[in-house]
C-alpha cells in the first residue's frame, strides 16, 4: 500500500517548468508571508496525476502533486503526508483527482493549496475551511474508520 513516488528531481523539474493554470496569473509581485485562505476564492481542479511526492524539496514543503488539467499543469500542495497515509489515501501517477482549493501567496509564489482531495469515491479534507492543515485523529478504540470530514 505504499504510495508510488517519483524521484524528487523529476518532481522538482516539472514544478520548475510547469505552466500553472491558476498559479502564475496570481503570483504576487513581491515576496509575502503566507496569506489567508478564503472560501470565496476557491476553485476546482480535475486532472491526471503526473507526479506525486510525500516530501517536496521546494517550499512549501510537504506532500505535493503535479496535476495535468485541461488548462495545463498545476503544482498542488496537499500538506501533511501523514494525514494522507493515515487515511489510506494513495496517490500515484495516472490517478484522476478532483481537488478543491485555491492559490495562496507564499514567498515569491502562490502555490495552489488543496482543501479537499477526491480520488474516485474517496474524498479527504486536508485543510480546514480557513486553510489550516488538518490534524490526524485516529479512530477511537477501533470504532472503525472515521471520516476526516469534507465529503464532497
Amino acid at each position: 500500500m505504499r504510495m508510488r513516488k517519483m524521484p524528487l528531481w523529476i518532481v522538482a523539474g516539472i514544478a520548475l517548468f510547469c505552466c500553472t493554470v491558476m498559479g502564475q496569473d496570481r503570483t504576487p509581485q513581491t515576496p509575502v508571508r503566507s496569506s489567508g485562505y478564503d472560501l470565496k476564492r476557491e476553485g476546482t481542479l480535475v486532472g491526471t496525476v503526473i507526479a506525486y511526492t510525500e516530501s517536496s524539496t521546494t517550499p512549501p514543503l510537504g506532500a505535493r502533486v503535479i496535476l495535468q488539467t485541461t488548462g495545463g499543469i498545476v503544482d498542488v500542495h496537499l500538506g501533511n503526508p501523514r494525514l494522507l497515509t493515515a487515511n489510506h489515501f494513495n496517490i500515484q501517477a495516472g490517478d484522476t483527482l478532483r481537488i478543491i482549493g485555491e492559490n495562496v501567496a507564499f514567498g515569491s509564489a502562490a502555490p495552489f493549496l488543496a482543501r479537499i482531495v477526491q480520488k474516485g469515491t474517496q474524498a479527504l479534507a486536508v485543510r480546514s475551511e480557513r486553510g489550516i492543515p488538518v490534524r490526524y485523529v485516529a479512530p477511537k478504540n477501533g470504532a472503525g474508520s472515521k471520516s476526516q470530514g469534507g465529503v464532497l
Partner: protein
Amino acid sequence: MKRLPWLTTLMLAAVLSACSGGGSNIPPPPPAGGFSVSSLKGYYAFSMSGLDTSGAYLARTGSFVADGAGNITSAMEDVVDLSAGAPTEVTFAPGSYSVQANGRGVIVLKDNSGNGLTLTMVLQSSSQGFLLQTDTGLIGTGSLGSFNLQTTTDFAATALNGNYIFDFSGESLTGATPTVVSTIGNISATGNGIITGGVIDINDGNAGVSSAVNILPGSYTLDPANGATFGRGTAVFAGHTFAFYIVDATRIKFLQEDSQGGSSGDAFLQSGAIPTQDSGFTGSFAYLVGGSSTVGPDAAVARFAADGKGGIGAISYDENNNGSLRHISQGSNISNASYAIDTVNAGSGRGTFTFTDSTNGTFTYVFYLISPTSGVIQDVSSGFVADGTLLAQTGSSFTLAGLAGNYVFNWSGVDISSYSVENYVGQYALANSASNNISGVLDGTSLGINGVASYPNSGVQGTLTINSGGSANNTYQIAAGSSVSPTYDFQAYIVDANTLLLVGTDKTRVLAGIVSRQSQ
C-alpha cells in the same frame, strides 16, 4: 494508521537511531555542576504535550513525588490521547530517577498495568525544569513539557483566588475537520469554587478568530481522592471541562478533558500593576509564537518597543514558515505599527498590537499580561493559528560576559521534509568567548510516520554570536554528536541575562525553543 507492536517499534527505533542522525564526533562532556538526586525532592506538577505514535494529539498533566534519594514514591497523571478514547487518570507504581551533576536526569515510571513512562529531565533548579518523553512504548512518544515544585499547603480550593491568565493550545474537534486551536484569556476565581467569569480570545483553525469573548461563570473543585495528595482538581469554564494540578496559588496546570478536542496549558495569577490604558504599557518586549499557517508549521520570534502612546517601534522579527525564512527590521518598510490596551475589558490585561511590513503584509496579535513584564500572546494574522510567550526585554546591551553560565533548553517542532515531530531538551555551559562558546548535551526524539527514534545524551557544541548589542536577532548555531540532525541553526532573541527565545532557521525543520539559566 495501525500501531506497531511495541517490539517492532523498539527495533525500528534502534534502526532509525543507527541509520540516521548526526555524524559529528562530539562526545558529551563530563557532567559538571552541583546537581544530584537530592536536588529533586518534593511534590512536582508536570505538563507535557505532543503526538502519540499514531500521530494524534496527546497531552499529559500530573504530579510526582521525589524523595531526594532517587525514588519516585508516588505519581499520577491525566492523559488525553485523541486516538485513544476518553481521557484517563493513571496512577503509577513507585518508580525511580537519576540526576547528573549537570542537572540532566531520567525519571522511570510504570503504571499499574505495567506500561512504562520514561522522561528525560533537565533541572533548571531544584524547583523546575523541562521534560522529554523518551520511551518508545505505546503510551505515546513525542511529548515535551515542564515541571514545577508544588506547594502542598496550596492544595485547597481557597488557593485559587484572583485573576489568572492562561494559554491553552491543542486540537479542536468541533469543526468540520480536526485542526489546531489556541485559547488565551483571563478567568477570575474566588477561592470558593466559583469562576466568576473572564474574557478569552480563541483562534481556531476551523472557526477562525473570535476576538474578545466574555465567558459565563464556571466552577472548580478539588478531586476528593487526589486533591490533597497531588493537588488535582477539575474545572468547568468557557464551555470546556478541565483537569488541573495546582503548582501553587500563582500557577495551575490545566488539561482539557471533553469531547471537543484536547488542549493544555498553564494559568498564572496576575500580579503587579496591570495596565488599563495605553500609557501603562511601555518598554521593550520579546515574544515567541508557534503554530500553523495555511502552508504548514510556523514559528516566529521577535521584539518591539512600546512607547506608552499606542505606538510600537524597534521591531525585529524572524520567522520560519514551513521552511520559508524571513527577517524583518524596523525601517521605512514598517507602517501602522500600533498597540491598544483593551479598555472595554479594563484590568483583564488584554491588548492587541499590529504592524505592516511593505513586503510581508500585516502581522496582528492579541496578548494578555500576567504582570507588567510577562504575558501570553496569540497570532491572529490572517491564515495563522499560533500562540506563545511575551516577555519584557530588560537590558539594552547584552554581552557574552554577562550571559556566561549554565543553561537548560527545550526545542520542539516539525521536520517538514518528513513531517516528523521533533522534541529536544538539553543543558550546556555558555562561555565568554567569541566562538565555540557552547558545550553540553541534548536528548532528542523524532516521531515519524514509521515510528519513534530516540537520541539520548548527545554531545553538543555551538556558538552564540551577539549582534549589535543583542537586543534584536542573534546567531545561534549548534552541532550535535548524535542527534536527529548534525546541526541546528537558530535566530536567538535575548530577553534578559537569564532567558533566550529561539526560532530555527533550517529550511527543512521548523523549531522553536527557550533557553533558561540554571540556578542551584
